[in-house]
């Protein structure tokens, strides 16, 4: 395990803004959103990790994107966290580097409202065709039934 930690720390260098080892199998790395393509490429190609999924969370500080990668042979999950400001909810797409990320970026875009610049196919994925524009169900200001919450 030490080898892979050393490799990631050396490979990403100053891009790592915060490093947390919650336990021997869970590593959380915080980066700036501008570095996401380079970091994703490094972990996917150089470290040969498998991309699991992307989680989008609406937090008071902004939209948090968590990219989960699995180092299968070591049983370690590395999560890359980025924060996206609510005033400009956009981040570069990694779908051209990792084809497996194509669907989830489309889903996060329609459910959370974060745009992925450079996505090859930014169509909605899950919501019905007549879903109202600008209503993002996973945002905290939307209730469970899809209507805006009363302030």
């Amino acid at each position, binding site marked *: 395990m030490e080898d892979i930690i050393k490799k990631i720390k050396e490979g990403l260098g100053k891009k790592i803004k915060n490093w947390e080892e919650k336990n021997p199998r869970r590593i959380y790395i915080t980066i700036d959103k501008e570095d996401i393509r380079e970091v994703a490429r490094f972990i996917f190609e150089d470290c040969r990790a498998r991309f699991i999924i992307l989680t989008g969370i609406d937090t008071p500080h902004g939209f948090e994107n968590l990219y989960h990668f699995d180092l299968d042979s070591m049983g370690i999950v590395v999560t890359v966290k980025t924060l996206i400001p609510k005033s400009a909810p956009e981040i570069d797409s990694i779908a051209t580097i990792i084809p497996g990320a194509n669907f989830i970026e489309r889903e996060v875009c329609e459910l959370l409202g974060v745009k992925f610049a450079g996505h090859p196919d930014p169509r909605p994925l899950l919501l019905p065709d007549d879903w109202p524009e600008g209503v993002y169900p996973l945002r905290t200001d939307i209730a*469970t039934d899809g209507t805006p919450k009363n302030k």
Partner: protein
Amino acid sequence: MKTVIPIGPYHPLQEEPEFFSLTLDGETVVDLDVRLGYNHRGIEKLAETKTWDQDTFLIERICGICSTSHPIAYCNAVEDCAGIEIPERAKYIRSIIGELERLHSHLLWLGLAGHFLGYNTLFMWAWKWREPILDLFEQITGNRNHYAMLKIGGARRDIDNEHIPAIRKCLNDLVGPLEMVTKAALDDPVLHARLKGVGVLKKEDAIKYCVVGPTARASGVAIDVRKDEPHAAYGIVKWNVITQEEGDVFAKAVVRLLEMFESVKIIQQCVDGLEKTKGAPFCAEVENIPPGEGIGHYEAPRGETFHYVRSDGTNRPVRHKIRAPTYVNLPSFKASCIGQTISDVAITLASIDPCYCCTERVAIVDRGTGRKEHISQEKLIHLSQEKTKKLGLNPDRIGRKIERWIAR
């Protein structure tokens, strides 16, 4: 391919929009697109309104066939967040339920694959062999599906040791038919002709699309959460990961068939564990879930199920992310279907074992004429069955072998 065919028995939606959109050049598929959303129920949002314990019941109902896989992954995630260690007896209980589910899920797939190829006898027998497993579930958990056996910290209910003879008998009765069907399938020339070299997913594509489960293992990517990150009893008992190299539909079938034997092995050893831990506690005391985040995954019959939870110390999750295995296996159709003929599409689509809430209607665009037609899943299956007949051999050889074996 020229008429609009009404809907088949599994997915009866009659009108637009198309779900799978195939672009053809003559009989060959050159492109594929997919439209999801018919079964989207907003479960992640609903999970935020339920308490940690209530969520286990909600999560079970994501998918009927992976009914215990999602709760195991969810409980793993919450236990990761809170640093909870589950008692040994709970590990055996989780593995037993998980592996019994794998058995009935793979048998379900076997039956459906048989139906798609025209082996309706195999369909009937495979689904008949599932029934004793479902009856066993009812005996030990109270329900044929949606067993509600999981709880954060361990198991919700104990498996009474007096059920152990019934579990052993069910497994022993299953091994004979499994061995017979496996041997019959591996030797069958019609299956070889229909499935070998069909729907090939190359290893590099399997890695690019990040596929999981038997879909990945059949392409030589040896990933299995039970081995890579042992949890429950998987690190305690002896078993093997099954892989094949070719990546075609036949390889996927072989992986699933051989995995069933491994499941039987695991359950037998876990039942020994139950005997050893008679009377021991099966659930840890959990006071509350502290603030933090947790990740849990589990090898469902279709592949890795992944759950992420974030807690702020209250009684409900702030965020609960769920990823089912079919979600990452589905896009790999782009790699495995392209270059296939339309009569092979049904079995290629079925080979990743999609939760079949996904497979609905298909639209075909003929690149030559530019004309768009709609074709139902039933018609695709019919084309597949016709291809088997055209091979000139008796299509239901496996059916006859099964019947001779039953009558012996």
